[in-house]
């Protein structure tokens, strides 16, 4: 099995891999060019205005954070629940988390008018008195949440990776690769004492990551929930956002898995059972999200608040209602097809449906942000929003970055947690006393 997993790393990459890398790198460069232009010229190159101060930027941010969450959930929560099937996907899910958080982390920085002063949100000792930061601001919470999330996810991922790195190291003939993997594997030798601590550390990290992931998206949701804007100021947001994140995250994991198992020929490890399980999760979270949508309307209606009611009427029927109906269509209606076993076992169908969910969840954030802002209290300030090519290019660029990182990851690191899968596999065969 080691050979199977390591094959993509050790052999020559396929043309499919090269093609995918070329496309995603190109996309990434487009995004980089757009960001360079925007940072050097001004946020004015985005379609924002005095009324709609956030749109693509924060939409992308929340979207990517949401994508990232599924990775942590798969590896941490499923680990805690002893869901053994997770071992096949957790490594790439964690990598997905890391790359998604990287993509997400870019947006809060570049959305600033003066990104070169982004360090102003960090409470560092300074010569201004010293002047600290506003710990009451959800953006400061965001900074702490995202950086903690990234670091903990990275550590969790790397801790899981160390035994596999050692495996590869020991498979290699002496040379550069062996040296590199030797350094990266921290001198791991599979010693009993190390494994002894390792198991607890891994468990505790999973235990920490689980509330962390919930807290991160809750904090992201407070960006909106703590504000005064109708459509944002809602206590439902933290659970709603977390559910949305799981929903979109699982959809993204599915999308990627379907590609990876095909491209990397890992059908034996990423089985239909995995896909089936994840499809079921997608249906479940879609239901939660649908209830959240309905609840928002109910709350607005029940609040007897003109502004609150208006915002939701405006979402569904106003000038940007297309975004709302895309969201509902993709997040509530299309996932219902997954009730059917036949569709769940059809990879193409699942792939298409998950793409829809990804689109829908992107639009969910867009709807929340833009339609709430564009018509708030004073009718005199109502405005519309349309993205500029720069913003679209930035979004494309973030996908480019994500896929580039992911493709490189697939090439250089084991996609499947060998150490864990072996545990599971051997465990299953112990009765027979067989070896692989």
């Amino acid at each position: 099995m080691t050979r199977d997993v390591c094959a993509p790393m050790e052999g020559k990459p396929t043309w499919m891999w090269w093609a995918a890398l070329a496309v995603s790198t190109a996309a990434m460069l487009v995004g980089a060019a757009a960001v360079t232009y925007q940072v050097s010229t001004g946020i004015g190159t985005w379609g924002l205005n005095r009324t709609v101060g956030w749109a693509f930027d924060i939409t992308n941010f929340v979207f990517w954070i949401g994508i990232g969450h599924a990775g942590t959930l798969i590896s941490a929560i499923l680990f805690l629940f002893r869901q053994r099937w997770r071992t096949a996907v957790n490594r790439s899910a964690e990598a997905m988390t890391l790359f998604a958080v990287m993509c997400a982390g870019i947006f809060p920085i570049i959305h600033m008018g003066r990104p070169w002063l982004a360090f102003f949100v960090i409470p560092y000792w300074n010569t201004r008195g010293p002047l600290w930061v506003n710990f009451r601001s959800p953006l400061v919470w965001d900074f702490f949440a995202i950086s903690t999330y990234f670091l903990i996810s990275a550590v969790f991922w790397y801790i899981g990776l160390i035994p596999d790195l050692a495996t590869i190291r020991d498979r290699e003939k002496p040379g550069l690769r062996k040296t590199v993997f030797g350094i990266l594997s921290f001198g791991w030798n599979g010693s009993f004492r190390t494994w002894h601590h390792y198991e607890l550390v891994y468990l505790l990290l999973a235990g920490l990551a689980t509330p962390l992931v919930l807290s991160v998206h809750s904090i992201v949701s407070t960006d909106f929930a703590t504000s005064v804007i109708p459509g944002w100021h809602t206590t439902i947001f933290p659970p709603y956002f977390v559910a949305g994140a799981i929903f979109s995250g699982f959809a993204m994991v599915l999308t990627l898995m379907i590609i990876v198992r095909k491209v990397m020929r890992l059908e034996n490890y990423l089985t239909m059972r995995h896909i089936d399980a994840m499809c079921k999760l997608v249906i479940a979270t879609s239901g939660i999200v649908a209830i959240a949508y309905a609840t928002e309307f109910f709350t607005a209606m029940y609040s007897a608040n003109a502004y609150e009611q208006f915002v939701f009427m405006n979402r569904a029927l106003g000038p940007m209602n297309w975004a709302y109906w895309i969201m509902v269509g993709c997040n509530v209606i299309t996932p219902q097809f997954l009730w059917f076993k036949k569709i769940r076992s059809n990879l193409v169908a699942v792939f298409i449906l998950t793409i829809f969910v990804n689109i829908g969840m992107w639009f969910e954030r867009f709807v929340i942000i833009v339609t709430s802002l564009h018509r708030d209290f004073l009718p005199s300030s109502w405005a519309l929003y349309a993205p500029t090519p720069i913003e679209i290019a930035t979004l494309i660029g973030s996908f480019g970055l994500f896929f580039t990182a992911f493709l490189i990851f697939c090439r250089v690191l084991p996609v499947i947690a060998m150490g864990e899968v072996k545990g599971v596999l051997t465990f299953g065969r112990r009765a027979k006393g067989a070896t692989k």
Partner: protein
Amino acid sequence: MTEVPETGWLGSRRLTTILVIALVFGAGLLVVGFGPVRLAGNQQGYEPTQPIAFSHRLHAGELAIDCMYCHSGADKSRHAGVPAASICMNCHKNVTSTFGAFRAEDDLAKKEKRPPRPIISAELRKLYDALGLDDARKPDPAKAATPIQWVRIHSVPDFVHFDHSAHVNVGVTCQQCHGTVQAMDRLRQDSDLGMGWCVNCHRTSNQTGIAGQPVRASIDCATCHH
């Protein structure tokens, strides 16, 4: 069983030691608060050459001319003001060189049995030139008057609106911010003029008062930033 010494790449203890030292050092740097590190824009100690070698030590120190005689805006305006050349001329219409130079010339003249020649020091000649005056301190039509381009030493960023009068009128001495100017031949920036320096003085003043009088030094942002 005994421990076997590590011989790995850079042996673990050595590495650990290095790491710990680096950490302690880094943390120390942070705690010192960039003390020794000069941040961009901090011009503390700036002591440029001026177009005229005016000595504050001579004027403010030895001659004990009141600061406000020349910097007359200090209690009236946001700018203390660099004195106009006409202010210099109040004295330097007559005083054209140092006392020592006059006496030397007097002695020499007495020795040579001739009336002493007028002496004009090289630095003061620059002043007269700026005003377009001849050696007799009369306007010289051939000379164009050109303003003196002093090199500005104390400056705060454009987004800081400092007001001298607000400070001078509550009794803050000039030296408190500008240092012992009366001892400087060439003027030097004494304080860092950073925000922390301002704010901490405001805080202290609120506690201790200034010149025995209680004051209310605001630390609101808009006091300086607007």
